[in-house]
């Protein structure tokens, strides 16, 4: 009971912050006009969520290459890989013969993009924002650039519904559980997600509380801080779909193994791009996350 009551005011505060950030994000994103590359038939897509959106808009027949982070849908993996999103090589990208490049914000290095611009290839930059509005904005920009504004509006509308449903569903959850997102466990070091991360963004969408706060980005946690945070749920990225391995690693970890999450076996490992990509599958991911936690919360309430 104590646990429940202590969280309620907090949740209200969080919704306010969420509302504020939703209100702010379109204003931030609406800057430079989107280049019109609707005539382009040879696209290179840089960034997992951008590629997913291109597929979702049915424009995949125009793709000639993708970056290393573009892993979904699996068909995308058959395209030539021009390298890691932030370490592109201009000649490599040009060799795939693009007449336009769609890049997620943060693609680079800037010099490589500059050389590509010099070579006369138009570049569309899709802003990254870890929120529901951010996903819709991405869809809108990709659609606008490719001359598929109508399709994008349809996709955007259905994603808006899905996000609203996921959010509604999450809001009906009676009790709340603290979630710790663990990015990696290399060498026993726990790298956890703080504020301003994609993990924090998806937790927000699922109305979940981050078990740790007060820092930004992904940081190694000291063992005592983990004990102090006492997460009820541990969320991870599954390594190439191997959910069991991630779970075993957590259970065997000397400190994580002692948390309520590990004791009750509440460890959720989801595909990285699905969970953190902020693309067309984000509503689904938020919903899955929220439903799983709801089941566990009900279990806890029943005990």
């Amino acid at each position, binding site marked *: 009971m104590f646990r429940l009551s202590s969280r309620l005011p907090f949740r209200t505060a969080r919704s306010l912050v969420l509302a504020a950030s939703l209100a702010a994000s379109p204003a931030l994103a609406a800057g430079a006009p989107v280049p019109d590359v609707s005539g382009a038939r040879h696209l290179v897509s840089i960034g997992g969520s951008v590629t997913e959106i291109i597929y979702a808009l049915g424009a995949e027949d125009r793709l000639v*290459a993708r970056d*290393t982070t573009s892993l979904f849908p699996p068909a995308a993996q058959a395209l*030539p*890989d*021009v*390298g*890691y999103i*932030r*370490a*592109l*090589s*201009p*000649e*490599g*990208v*040009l*060799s*795939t013969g693009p007449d336009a490049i769609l890049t997620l914000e*943060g693609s*680079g*290095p*800037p*010099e*490589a993009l*500059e*050389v590509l611009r*010099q*070579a*006369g290839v138009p570049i569309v930059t899709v802003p990254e924002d870890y929120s529901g509005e951010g996903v819709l904005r991405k869809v809108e920009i990709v659609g606008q650039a490719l001359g598929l504004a109508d399709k994008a509006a349809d996709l955007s509308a259905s994603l808006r519904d899905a996000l609203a449903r996921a959010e509604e569903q999450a809001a009906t959850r009676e009790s709340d559980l603290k979630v710790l997102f663990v*990015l990696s466990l290399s060498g026993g070091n726990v790298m956890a997600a703080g504020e*301003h*991360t994609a993990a924090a963004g998806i937790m927000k969408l699922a109305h979940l509380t981050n078990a740790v706060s007060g820092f*930004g*980005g*992904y*940081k*190694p946690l000291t063992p005592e801080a983990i004990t102090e945070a006492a997460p009820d749920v541990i969320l991870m990225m599954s390594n190439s779909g191997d959910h069991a391995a991630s779970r075993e690693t957590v259970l065997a970890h000397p400190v994580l193994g002692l948390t309520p999450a590990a004791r009750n076996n509440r460890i959720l490992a989801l595909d990285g791009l699905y969970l953190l990509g902020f693309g067309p599958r984000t509503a689904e991911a938020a919903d899955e996350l929220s439903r799983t936690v709801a089941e566990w919360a009900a279990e806890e309430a029943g005990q």
Partner: protein
Amino acid sequence: MSLASLSAEDAGDTPAASSRAGHAGAGDRRRRARLVLLALAGLLVVVALASLSIGAVGVTLGDYLHARLFGGEIPLRDRLVIEVIRLPRMVLGMLVGAGLAVAGAVMQGLFRNPLADPGLIGVSAGSSLGVAAFIVLGSTVLSPVSALLGFHAVPLAAFAGGLAATFCLYRLGQSQGQTSIATLLLAGIALSAIVFACVGVLIFMADDQQIRDLNFWQLGSLAGATWEKTLAAAPLILASLAGARLMAGGLNALFLGEAAAGHMGLDVERLKTAAIFCVAGAVGASVAVAGGIGFVGIVVPHLLRLLMGPDHRYLLPGCALLGASLLLVADTVARVLVAPAELPIGIVMALVGGPFFLWILLRRKGLIAGV
């Protein structure tokens, strides 16, 4: 085997080599060195032309020249690949390779130790700190500066960091107007430790993307080569190369020891200062435009000493030629091996340079049977 015994043996090795060569006649050796230089120049030309012809895009230098000289057809994009991507990249690669190899040879001459590396005078550490500071703090604390400099901020930070670290170290190594090489070496280790701790703090503060950026920077790459960058780095590297060549006689004299060189009328202090800043200039500029590329400074001078002897008048130009060739080869491999993606050149260099260096070492120790 300890490092100390290794370097002692190596140092003792060279006079023996020169006495062997000595009884073959100094003229013979000079002729041999000239032949090696000529061969290296030929190699560089071949490698340079090849690097213009090989890449992820299928256009070759032949296509390009045919189109430009005889009015043949060439798509605009292919023309730009040669002019905007491969050509600046080739020039930058040659400059960086030559700069790093010559800097290595000068350091080894200065420290009278074939294992000395430009890293010893803190250039690399200082550059890393400059780059880490900009990658991590560029959008927050240092945002006014990075807004002003755009994407020149990181190269400039690398250069400034490298030069600042070298200057600090130089002051630390000096007492009563004398530069103590031993103090310089030890202070260099301490300073590097401090600087890398600062880099560690920045890494701790960094977000995921910044850590990856830093990582890729440390592995080195010529993928960001533009004419702008090349022209910015060229004066500094060329000046350092020319400066190094002027020091060749002094470095030869220094081989006999500081006291003996002083008795021969050499201004040892001036030579040391000039050598240190020459190395800092070449390495600072190279690291700034291409990131961390190891091994060139050790492998190239070492190999050439075996081929042409330790005379710096031939060794230094030889290093410039071979260093440039080696870097171009590594860069060409880096960009075609996993095309259309690209490997960081530091990886290629260490994977090629490491085993090669080991092979030379073992061969010299007679540990490989039949050699």
